[in-house]
């Protein structure tokens, strides 16, 4: 651990990233360019989130890392051990105990509180990209609040599928100003973007940082006659019986038996520990 500076990055780089984070917090939803550094892991592993994390961590922090809601996937385990080794910070799987949480693809079910920081790994930060590939033009559209194109995307969804089919990376408007891509979280998580925690978004390959300060107004885009619907699978969790959590569909045996389980493993374990039981548990009991 003494081979590295605290949290791997040198102080000069961290200062540069912190400046970008502060600017991002000052202009909620605005994508701030930053000079992304090489990290000892591939881009697909969320180097943007890792750099933001490195610039945010202090020795007193308690770190939690999730990937798709789980603390025990390869990506989550690797990043967690990376910061254990390079920063020597405490780690946890309990959402409520963490001071900083790094995430890919989910917001924890347990409501975050003031003082917590949620850091997202972002693959593509630009919500206008798929209809307007020119970067010069998308920047101008943000600057001039020309967001009609976002609704063209939603219009196309409804025309083709009868409903807004966008289920991940569902675009939001931040404080009535910037349109933002919330990273590929399920739209089920969109209402949780309105949070007491600080939320930081890091895109490594694209070299962008953006942020939501606590209690920022975040509205999911929609039409008057097709309002935003953060729908979830219509099942209780098979393990803990939760009806308010985001579920993964899991195949449990060779016969193709399927089960719906909380994607947030900490939330599910916490409920089970508190005595809640789903159909699978009840059957086994």
């Amino acid at each position, binding site marked *: 651990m003494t081979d590295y500076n605290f949290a791997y990055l040198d102080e000069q780089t961290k200062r540069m990233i912190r400046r970008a984070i502060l600017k991002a917090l000052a202009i909620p939803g605005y994508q701030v360019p930053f000079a992304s550094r090489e990290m000892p892991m591939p881009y697909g592993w969320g180097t943007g989130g890792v750099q933001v994390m490195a610039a945010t961590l202090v020795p007193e922090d308690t770190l939690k890392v999730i990937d798709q809601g789980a603390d025990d996937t390869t990506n989550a385990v690797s990043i967690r051990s990376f910061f254990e080794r390079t920063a020597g910070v405490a780690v946890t799987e309990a959402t409520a105990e963490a001071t900083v949480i790094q995430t890919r693809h989910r917001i924890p079910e347990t409501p975050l509180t003031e003082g917590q920081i949620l850091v997202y790994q972002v693959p593509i930060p630009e919500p206008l990209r798929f*209809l307007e590939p020119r970067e010069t033009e998308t920047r*101008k559209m943000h600057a*001039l609040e*020309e967001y*009609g*194109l976002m*609704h*063209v995307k939603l*219009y*196309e969804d*409804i*025309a*083709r599928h009868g409903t807004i089919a966008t289920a991940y990376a569902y675009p939001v408007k931040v404080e009535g100003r910037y349109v933002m891509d919330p990273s590929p979280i399920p739209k089920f998580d969109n209402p949780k973007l309105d949070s007491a925690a600080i939320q930081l978004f890091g895109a490594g390959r694209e070299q962008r940082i953006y942020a939501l300060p606590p209690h920022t107004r975040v509205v999911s885009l929609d*039409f*008057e*006659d*097709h309002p935003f619907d953060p729908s979830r699978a219509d099942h209780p969790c098979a393990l803990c019986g939760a009806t308010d959590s985001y579920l993964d569909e899991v195949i449990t045996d060779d016969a193709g038996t399927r089960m719906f389980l909380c994607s947030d493993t900490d939330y599910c374990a916490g409920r089970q520990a508190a005595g809640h039981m789903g159909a699978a548990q009840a059957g086994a009991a």
Partner: protein
Amino acid sequence: MNMHATPTPDTPLLSVRGLTRTYGARIGCADVSFDLWPGEVMGIVGESGSGKSTLLSCMAGHLVPDTGEVLFDMGGTLRDTLTLSEPDRRRLGRTDWAFVHQHARDGLRMGVSAGGNVGERLMAVGARHYGDIRARAADWLDRVEIAADRMDDRPTAFSGGMQQRLQIARNLVTGPRLVFMDEPTGGLDVSVQARLLDLLRGLVREMGLSAIIVTHDLAVVRLLADRLMVMKDGRVVEQGLTDQVLDDPQHGYTQLLVSSVLQV
């Protein structure tokens, strides 16, 4: 006494003054001035390279002229659109103004359905009711003779004539006060051109459109334009009422144009 619903206004809709644009030592257009009155269609003709597209692009704000003014009636006063802030100029471009490109693919989103293409301008100015947007898009597709069952198809699946009609619908759906058109029938088969011309003429009459149409095809201006400007080497050599200019051309160059001696 004869009461007119719309009295003849005393200010033009558009007033172009001394517009000049060069490309290095080469002249694009030079010292062009004219007024366009509400409800009027102005044709700009001339052979290839005479400066028509340069002039149109300068007027529409796509190209920055070296000198000159492009005054537009905004709330009763003429304002120089060249000195507008960029946000205001872009807003003008998606509200009061429309631009029909010669090549439909320059004016359409090829990856978006026909309905989405027409709806975009509505959404750009704040429409947020899907059913309303769709109904208005359907109405406009009908007006440009695109079958209702093609509404969710992308323009890549359309013929050249259909693409051009779609581009026109997309531009007119918000009822712009001024339409710029660059060779709207260029590059289409003759029979397709005729149908598009008929359609344009119908729309111009029905909507009382104010438009500036650039073309090298005298048949187009004969059908559509109230007045005509003839350009040569970047300059206007003759202008007047369309019938007058075409039937009794004064300038030697116009005489050559009209007699079809020039291969335009």
